[in-house]
């Protein structure tokens, strides 16, 4: 293995990455990451409004990764149950990057949902959120498709996503959430 950790470090420093993780997501890990980010934002004396926005969006983004792992079909290639996420901050904005494998079938479905969310303005998103909240559908974990709508609403930004086809069965799904300060 030929890895220069100093190059890694410099790259992350240039990109203003505060925290990064690659591996398997557990409930305990999410609790720790949320606590770390909360105390980092406290130390930076972020305004309450920004702190809450970033925290809320982070909860949704990380729990999406967590629930995604539950949905991995049996016999999925080893390594496909690991994910990556990074949290960065510049003068202008916080950024949350997430990445995970997804089956091509699910990628198609997710893509059309994300495109729908991106086609809506703020008022339409509010109406859509209430519609999905009130339609009685609930996944066995509770959310039932509200997470991405909530991220779009709270960030006030279009969802910046990409699906990179890996092979006949899988794609790699990446999401970049931008939260302006």
């Amino acid at each position, binding site marked *: 293995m030929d890895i220069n950790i100093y190059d890694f470090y410099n790259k992350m420093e240039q990109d203003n990455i505060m925290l990064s993780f690659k591996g398997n997501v557990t*409930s305990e890990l*999410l*609790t720790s990451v*949320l*606590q770390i980010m909360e105390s980092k934002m406290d130390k930076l004396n972020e*305004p*309450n*409004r920004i702190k*809450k*926005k970033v*925290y*809320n969006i982070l*909860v*949704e983004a990380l*729990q999406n990764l*967590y*629930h995604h792992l539950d949905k991995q079909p049996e016999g999925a290639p080893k390594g496909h149950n690991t994910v990556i996420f990074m949290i960065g901050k510049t003068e202008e904005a916080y950024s949350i990057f997430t990445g995970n494998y997804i089956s091509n079938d699910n990628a198609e479905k997710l893509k059309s949902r994300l495109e729908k969310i991106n086609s809506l303005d703020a008022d339409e998103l*509010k109406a859509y*959120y*209430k519609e999905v*909240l*009130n339609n009685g559908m*609930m996944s*066995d*974990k*509770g*959310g*039932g498709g*509200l*997470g991405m*709508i*909530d991220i779009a609403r*709270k960030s006030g930004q279009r969802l910046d996503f990409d699906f990179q086809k890996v092979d006949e069965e899988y794609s790699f799904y990446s999401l970049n959430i931008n939260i302006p300060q």
Partner: protein
Amino acid sequence: MENLVIEGSPKTPTIKFNPEEGKLLIQGRSIPENSIDFYKPLVDALEEYAGGVKEATKVDIVLEYFNTSSSKCILDVFKKLERINEAGGGVTINWHYEEDDEDMLEAGEDYQAIINIPFKMVEIEED
């Protein structure tokens, strides 16, 4: 009917339900990965309460954060309260939010638009 008390944790709120006094408090953070199991005892208690309804039921929601997994469960709680209200339970819901937390205020307004119970938006001033 017995009181229901659930102590808060980093991911779940404190719940205090006193059926004798007709008082319900949900306070803290509600961000568990799986909310349905967490809210079930409260939903069940409200179901039982609906049978022997009091004249007035006062509900205080003082949430700092809640995730979308909780949002449907909170709606379930409100729907139970809506039925209690219709049965003569005189429900009032105080939705508390920190003064600069527009997202939390908006979340309360979303519920208000869906649920047929008087909501009162209560601003918590920052210290």
